[in-house]
């Protein structure tokens, strides 16, 4: 079947993404090696893979982040490639280098590019140099209030004052006017001084109703690059994406072309290869700003697959195997509308606390237009050591309305017993008027929105 230069891949991950990768490999005729921690013994990935190796105890530092054991398992099993999935070692340039030094293909970009794009500040500089818009901000710490006022004047209010040494919201103040700005700078400096011992602050523009819009790019090793349109991931809770869709309800054909071209240009500028995602913020006026790049497959890649028909994980394998991308940008059209809901093992009634346990009974939705990516099965364990994402329910519809109706139907069908999940919360979210109106923005408190929509 396959004549790829990759014959056997070790999947250095767990859960639904390990299953996703195994599925892609199988369809390409590539043999699969699962690795698992003791907590994942008997997991779906180990059942589906051709081989499975235990690489350590439950905690990920001793298993899924245990580079020597993973590399040993690859060498012993004769794997000629490693797919890192997302999370764990996926964006670790050191790991990518070790793979290469053992003649194991790392399915992803080069370690060098990963280093550049992994440093947020450096990535921003590189993308600005490539001509991509980045969120306007002062070039560094402001010297005085005059500089701040000049910046605010140039880009307009509101602006955010941020501590250079910041983090966790400390030393952050929004300002809507000149007067507020002066006060905000003083407050932020004082708070920064107290919190970090350094008073330096810089300014960034605050966007009007910002949306998280990201563009999936594919670049082969000959530098042939395409983008697969955008995903809208504005529905978040504490910076965790909850619902993703493609196309974005806020992106028209003109903006799609502009943001897609920018994404491709940025990727090519740094010599990016394989699949990657350029994340942007889009404001109410349709202006877009580069935020960061994810140098791996994304959790939400299925929505793009549903509207383009392109299998992104297979494309990753093909590119890593040295194959050229067989399609051109003109072949890519976004057909219909796709939505994904992340199902997490967490208890919304207890502040979304993780809820590990054994899945005693399970009913997954099916039928037309429904795709489920999960490693769950009746009787499986959800270990306490890892991310709480346990399933992704994605739907396709001819238009956004059909997709929403289908998602509501799919979420109604799903039954997971034994662990608490956010299914009921997602039902309310999808059924909310704000979601239907595509009027949820990155800075919204989703919890409050959904609560406010209650009958």
């Amino acid at each position, binding site marked *: 079947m396959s004549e790829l230069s990759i014959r056997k891949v070790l999947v250095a991950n767990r859960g639904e993404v390990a299953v996703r990768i195994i599925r892609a490999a199988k369809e390409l005729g590539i043999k699969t090696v699962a690795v698992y921690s*003791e907590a994942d*013994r008997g997991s779906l990935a180990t*059942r589906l893979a051709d081989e499975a*190796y*235990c*690489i350590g105890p439950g905690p990920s530092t001793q298993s899924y982040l245990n580079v020597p*054991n993973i590399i040993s398992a690859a060498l*012993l*099993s004769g794997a000629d490639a490693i797919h890192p999935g997302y999370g764990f070692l996926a964006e670790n340039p050191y790991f990518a280098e070790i793979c290469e030094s053992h003649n194991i293909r790392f399915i992803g970009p080069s370690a060098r590019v990963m280093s550049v794009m992994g440093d947020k500040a450096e990535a921003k500089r590189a993308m600005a140099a490539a001509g991509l818009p980045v969120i306007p901000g002062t070039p560094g710490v402001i010297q005085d209030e005059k500089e701040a006022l000049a910046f605010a004047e140039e880009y307009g209010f509101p602006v955010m004052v941020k501590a250079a040494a910041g983090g966790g919201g400390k030393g952050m103040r929004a300002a809507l006017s000149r007067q507020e700005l002066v006060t905000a700078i003083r407050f932020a400096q004082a708070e920064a001084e107290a919190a970090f011992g350094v008073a330096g602050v810089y300014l960034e523009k605050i966007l009007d109703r910002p949306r998280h819009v990201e563009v999936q790019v594919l670049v082969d090793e000959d530098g042939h690059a395409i983008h697969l349109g955008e995903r809208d991931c504005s529905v978040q809770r504490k910076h965790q994406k909850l619902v993703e869709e493609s196309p974005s309800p806020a992106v028209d054909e003109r903006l799609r072309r502009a943001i897609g071209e920018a994404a491709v240009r940025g990727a090519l500028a740094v010599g990016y290869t394989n699949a990657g995602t350029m994340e942007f913020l889009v404001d109410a006026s349709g202006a877009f700003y580069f935020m960061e790049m994810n140098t791996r497959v994304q959790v939400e890649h299925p929505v793009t697959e549903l509207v383009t028909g392109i299998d992104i994980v297979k494309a990753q394998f093909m590119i890593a195997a040295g194959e050229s991308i067989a399609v051109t940008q003109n072949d890519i059209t976004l057909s219909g509308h796709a939505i994904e809901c992340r199902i997490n093992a967490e208890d919304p009634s207890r502040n979304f606390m993780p809820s590990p346990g054994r899945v005693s009974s399970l009913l997954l939705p099916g039928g037309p237009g429904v795709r489920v990516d999960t490693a769950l099965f009746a009787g499986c364990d959800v270990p306490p050591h890892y991310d709480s994402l346990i399933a992704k329910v994605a739907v396709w519809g001819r238009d956004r309305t059909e997709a929403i109706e289908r998602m509501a139907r799919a979420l109604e069908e799903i039954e997971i017993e034994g662990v608490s999940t956010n299914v009921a919360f997602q039902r309310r979210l999808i059924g909310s008027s704000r979601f239907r109106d595509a009027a949820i923005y990155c800075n919204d408190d989703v919890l409050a929105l959904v609560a406010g929509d209650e009958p």
Partner: protein
Amino acid sequence: MGLKELRREIAGLAKIMNAHDIAEIEVTTDGVSVKLKRAGAPTSAQQGREVVQPEAPPQEKTTFAEAAPQARAEVTARDNHITIPAPMVGTFYRAPAPDAEPYVEIGDVVSPGQVVCIIEAMKIMNEIQAEVRGRVVEILVENAEPVEYGQPLFVLEAL
């Protein structure tokens, strides 16, 4: 134990009953008592209630270590037998060099800290030491075979 917590346990029991065709289950522990009885099954008093062990995960396909147990990195005791599991993934060698004598043979008595084998991982030879005193009664892996994490290598008889 709360009823909600308990329900999860009962679901597990019910599943066990169903999978194993158990007629009734009665459990009393820590002030909790649970009794389950299957429909259709003769509800007569059957003695010797079946105790169902936690069953093996279905259809696990390891290429090696077919009996890969719940082994810990530390040694696990079974009767007076002690297992030495592999603390890492790699290739198992019984001797320091191809032409050298094996570190240990069956019948040898080993002491804590004594090297019993080598596991080669990423071209590094890792000496594996016994952690307790015991007599080697079984060597579970052939020389130069790959081992996964936790795979039992030796069985010792505690002394």
